């Protein structure tokens, strides 16, 4: 398989993993906010809402992929010229790219685009989701020692 196609496949996998985690984290954050105002939410309702919210993947995956393209390209250059632990570079890139994108969208639209990121903990959970995406990308592409 050509190197470019392998990188694209890794990027899509990373975007999917990050988006699924982000959606799940966002739902839990929204539910926690509702429970903080004494709303009863059963485990079954929590699971149902978590599954229903995966609908946002249709928007989240493309946005995540775009911000990863930018972030991973920058990090690829950084790793090439600076060196160090390649996986750590991509983990940091995944977290930073996702948080930066959310903050840029917020600055442009003057609203928080994903309700689950309104709190510091919610935003941190998205950083973790982005970091996992970076780790996935780094691992898939590691043996090829390639980068976008």
């Amino acid at each position: 398989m050509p190197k470019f196609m392998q990188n694209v496949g890794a990027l899509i996998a990373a975007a999917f993993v990050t988006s699924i985690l982000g959606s799940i984290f966002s739902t839990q954050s929204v539910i926690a906010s509702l429970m903080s105002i004494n709303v009863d939410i059963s485990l079954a309702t929590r699971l149902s809402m978590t599954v229903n919210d995966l609908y946002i993947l249709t928007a989240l995956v493309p946005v995540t992929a775009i911000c990863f393209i930018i972030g991973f390209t920058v990090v690829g250059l950084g790793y090439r010229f600076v060196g160090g632990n390649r996986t750590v570079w991509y983990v940091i890139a995944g977290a930073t790219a996702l948080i930066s994108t959310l903050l840029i969208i917020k600055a442009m639209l003057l609203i928080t685009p994903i309700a689950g990121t309104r709190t510091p903990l919610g935003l941190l959970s998205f950083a973790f989701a982005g970091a996992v995406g970076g780790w996935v990308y780094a691992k898939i592409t590691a043996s090829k020692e390639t980068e976008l």
Partner: protein
Amino acid sequence: MKKAALIATSLIFIFSNGVSAQHVAGNYDNYSTTVIASGLNKAWAHDFLPNGDILVTERGGAIKVVRNGIILSADVRNVPDVYFAGQGGLLDIMLDADFAMNKTLYLSYAFGSSKGNATRLVSAKLNKSKDSYQLDDINIIFTASPLKQGPQHYSGRIAQMADGTLLLGIGDGFDFREQAQKLDSHLGKIIRINSDGSVPDDNPFVKSKGAKPEIWSYGHRNHQGLVIANGIVYQNEHGPKGGDEVNIIEPGINYGWPVITQGIDYNGAQVTPYKEYPGMQQPLVDWTPSIAPSSMAFHNSKLYVSALAEQSIRELSINGKQITDKGKVFSEIEGRIRDIATSPDGSLYVLTDGEQAQLIKITQTNILE
């Protein structure tokens, strides 16, 4: 030259006479729409002075005076500084019911900065100046608490009850929706105060420990229409993606946001798993998908709701506490509609939205019912 330009942009145009068959309006057989004034910049609300002048608020912080179809070159002076960003700025204007005697009006606006802002209500005396009007004796009678970040969801619509008390809608601030359920916060509430800012003794939570005593009702998102007729308080509010509502507001009632809604978040995620919940009031009218209601007027025993996203005016019939959406009317009026009000002479006036907003009069020429 400037005056001539103002006159030119304010010329009256008769758009149409008569109604096409597709109109659903029950009240109107024949009507005409007349552009009273053009070129208003982000107009938000208007009210009518006894002498025929019309005051129009612009979100940037100006109050324009429309006199005989002309926008006066001199704005109303001494308007308080507003926080003009996002949905914020100068919002509603309402004359006191006893304006002819006390010359008092009320203004709502976004106050503060990006780091901390809130919906604020002031009273002021409107006095004539050499070429226009000016505000004197400006008193801050209410500021929503806590201050919030972000320039969205102020609401700001004002109404006055028969006993002279004032109702003010306060939005949930967008990112703070859970506060609509908290009685120690003004966000997502309708508050009721006396005209001097004091709290009426018969407010529903005045004796509840920890509750803001001004709260009249709660569980609201972003009210846009608030009108009182025959002692009944009618309100509409924006849902998120879907879930726009019309409610009859009664004291102490929880209208449910964000625990119940027919809408979903803009990104498609659920705001809540619930469409109903014990102790929370269902809307009388729900618009899903959203029409983005912007204002509401009571006219000829019906409600007229202006809409931004749908770019329409809807007529709603009232039967006791049952409200029925009868559909779109006045389809000649195009664009996003920001405000609708009934004038002292019984005509409907609407304000369009945007940087070239128009003030349009709808004149009824024949009543069917």
